[in-house]
């Protein structure tokens, strides 16, 4: 059993063998956190072995939301499977659509129109902001701060309004499709979007004031659930969890897909305490770093969207037909940077219109696997902090 937190925080350890006196008997307790628990973000079940408030072991059990997404993909044409990808990571539907669409396009060899690429990228980044807003808000909720949650949902609501104006849906978009996007942008969409960005960017400073640098919040999250860079790479963590551990790895930057190589943006990574804008008690790879990477990524997404609006070309938004594409007898594996990490799709065609095999690599699924590693040796109240900072979506863990 790994004991990273025990090593860094020996002050929380109570040695019951030494402390118990006389006939007082202490014993470990097994307790189920979930599948119905307010802090497990869905139907995650964590079996905790506890010694009072101290957690000795926290084993995640999954599978309560399994819906055979991959098997469904092997029975439908790619354009029909797009709506199912929405349901995987339901907070980042656009990004899921995009991943599957890119996989099919590369397999079949479809040239996506320039305008569609820009629209896709704007929506993927907007969805990244929306998804990180939920992560930010619910993380405050896990810490017992109710107000940031309402603020973040207020801002997310406006993004959903933008999505609704473009594709008519607010959660399961199915907007990005094989060969482009389903519909062209509505009139004045880009103006409203710019207006929103002007409104949103100052709000991040407000969030930082309210939550990020709140003394209690830093006390709760700094030096809690520390994942070292080696551990993060070793456990195949991706996304903000990996970058929170100080590893500068973002697929948008390191192996740019679509048109990400045309934009300037930074990749925020976890910094040690005492650096600029980082409280003294923070350690690289703790919950505060993972949380802060998301907050900073929202600003970087705004930066990308601003550049994309300037470069937006005219032209068609969809390359030819969607239906009855002949998938060649070949295979492809594509990964893109989802808000939660690298979402990969493996697709193998057999000459028909229906894929012979579809396999998804969900970032939440891989990220949650480290829970027992960092979650043993912490306190009970740290478990929601760690689960929240890993930011899982159970729809994607179970698929």
């Amino acid at each position, binding site marked *: 059993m790994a004991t990273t937190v025990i090593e860094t925080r020996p002050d929380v350890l109570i040695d019951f063998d030494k402390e118990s006196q006389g006939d007082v008997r202490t014993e470990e307790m097994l307790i189920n956190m979930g599948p119905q628990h307010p802090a497990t973000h869905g139907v995650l079940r964590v079996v905790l072995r506890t010694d009072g408030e101290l957690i000795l072991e926290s084993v995640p059990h999954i599978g309560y939301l399994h819906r055979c997404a991959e098997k469904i993909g092997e029975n439908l044409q790619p354009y029909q499977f797009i709506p199912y990808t929405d349901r995987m990571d339901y907070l980042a539907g656009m990004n899921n659509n995009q991943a599957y669409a890119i996989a099919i396009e590369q397999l079949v060899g479809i040239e996506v129109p320039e305008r569609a690429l820009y629209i896709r990228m704007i929506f993927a980044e907007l969805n990244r902001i929306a998804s990180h807003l939920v992560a930010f808000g619910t993380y405050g909720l896990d810490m017992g701060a109710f107000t940031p949650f*309402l603020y973040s949902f207020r801002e997310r609501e406006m993004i959903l309004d933008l999505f609704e104006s473009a594709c008519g849906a607010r959660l399961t978009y199915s907007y990005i499709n094989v060969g482009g996007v389903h519909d062209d942008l509505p009139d004045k969409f880009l103006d409203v979007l710019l207006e929103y960005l002007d409104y949103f960017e100052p709000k991040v400073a407000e969030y930082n004031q309210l939550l990020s640098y709140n003394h209690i919040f830093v006390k709760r999250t700094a030096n809690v659930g520390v994942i070292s860079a080696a551990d993060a790479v070793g456990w195949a963590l991706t996304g903000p969890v990996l970058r929170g551990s100080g590893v500068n790895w973002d697929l948008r930057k390191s192996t740019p897909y679509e048109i990400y190589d045309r934009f300037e943006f930074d990749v925020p990574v976890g910094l040690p305490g005492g650096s600029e804008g980082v409280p003294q008690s923070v350690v690289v790879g703790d919950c505060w770093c993972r949380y802060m990477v998301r907050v900073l990524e929202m600003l970087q997404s705004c930066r990308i969207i601003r550049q994309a609006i300037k470069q937006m070309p005219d032209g068609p938004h969809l390359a030819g037909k969607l239906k009855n594409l002949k998938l060649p007898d070949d295979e492809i594996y594509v990964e893109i940077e989802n808000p939660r990490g690298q979402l990969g799709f493996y697709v193998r065609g057999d000459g028909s219109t229906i894929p012979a095999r579809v396999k998804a690599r969900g970032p939440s699924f891989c990220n949650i696997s480290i829970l027992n590693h960092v979650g043993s040796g912490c*306190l009970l109240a*740290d478990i929601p902090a760690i689960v929240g900072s890993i930011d899982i979506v159970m729809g994607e863990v179970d698929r």
Partner: protein
Amino acid sequence: MTQMSVPWRPRGKVRYTGLSGLIAGFARAIYGMAAPVVRAFPGSILLGAIFTVILVGWAHFLLFEFADNHLIGADSNISAVRGFLGAELTLAEIENGLAVAGAPAPGVLQYAFYPIQFRIVRDLLSAGGILGFISVIPLYTIWWERKVAGRIQSRTGPMRVGGWHGWSQSMADGIKLINKEDFVPDHADGVLFRLAPYVAFVPAILAFFALPFGTYWVFRELDVALVFILAMLGIEVLGVILAGWASNNKWSVYGAMREACQMVSYEIPMGMALLIPVMAVGTLSMTEIGNVQGDGWTSWIVFRNPFTFAAAVVYYVAALASCKRAPFDLPESESELVSGFHTEYSGFRWSLFFFGEYAAMFVVSGLCVILFLGAWHSPLPMSLADRFLGDDLLSRAAKGLFFSGPLWFVLKCVWLLYVQIWIRWTLPRIRIDQVLYACIQYMLPLMMVILLGHTLYELLVPVHGIVWTFFNIALSVIGGAVMLFLVSIACYGYLNRVKLVGWLGVETLPGS
């Protein structure tokens, strides 16, 4: 598998007969008459109700005073008792009873007021008043908390029930809770499970019996009122622990154990902080402690010297922990322990916990007000009132309104309640080890230093000397400035509420 009752199984319609039928019919008739009126004038009815409560409380005391002034003579007492027992009264006896010397009111009234001279009757009347007050306070604090939370979170809070800003939302919730299923989980300790809410709720009421709202506005004038109230707040914790243990739920046990841990850590600094005003005044009687602070706001104990000021702050922090309010709401921390000690509770029992919690919030605020913040006195000195106001009814009313009275006590308590709400909706929750560290490692030594410092200060610094006056005036000015600042922020927030909430809250929400 737990055997649960099946709500969809058809049940016979309840038929009310006899007395219950009469009561049900009466309730229906009142509802039929009152509902249209309440719907038409909700806001004015609410304000009217508040004023009526104040007037009724005041009339109560006038009544007692009247009864004291016009006691029926000994002879007529005997005849009155005989009259009650059914014996015949002679005409002469009645005339004798009516003609008490110097009675301005019609003599017949004296018979009506006759029972009020007995202590037990007065106690029953006052207990009824206190119970009514305790029922109203949580209802409106909950509604108000939801409104304040809504304002903080740029939404509106309850808007529908009752019309004006959802003012009867809590009452509707209460009716819903009472109607819920009487549910006790399998393998729970039935007796303790049923007992626990009362153990948590009753002490909160009992604390009100010793809490003075004004010089004469106290149910029982106790010499050790402070100790009594602290003891009652301590018993409340027992109810929480009992509830957690009896629920047969691991999360509830966690909540209960956290409450126990938290109690042993906050109770000591809290008790020590309460010793400071006791030392300053030299009595444990709350009424006396309150009465020495009547000389304007500079005479309030919190501004007396730096140590009392610090003690007031420490007391308020510990009081937050004692009411299980954020950031110390660990026993029921929603995101960690589901609902903590009341996970398995629902319906009426759950609402008792809530009533107990909000009543306790009022009690700790009341303690803070009486011991530190000038009790029931307004910031104006009482000497002004003595100079300008006489002793007639109107002057007394003006005195209560502007200088000293329960109204000021309730106002200050409500302000402190508001601060509790404000803190709850702003701050995240502290972890249990941090609570223990904060209370035992920082607050306890700090309180010891304050206690020692205050003792030496009282011993060495002459009262009304230069040093004493300097600190008194300086702290008073600081305190007044802080208060003005907060009030101006609140006014700014209220006047610019539409702008601050933003377009989403103003334009798109229904009922806004």
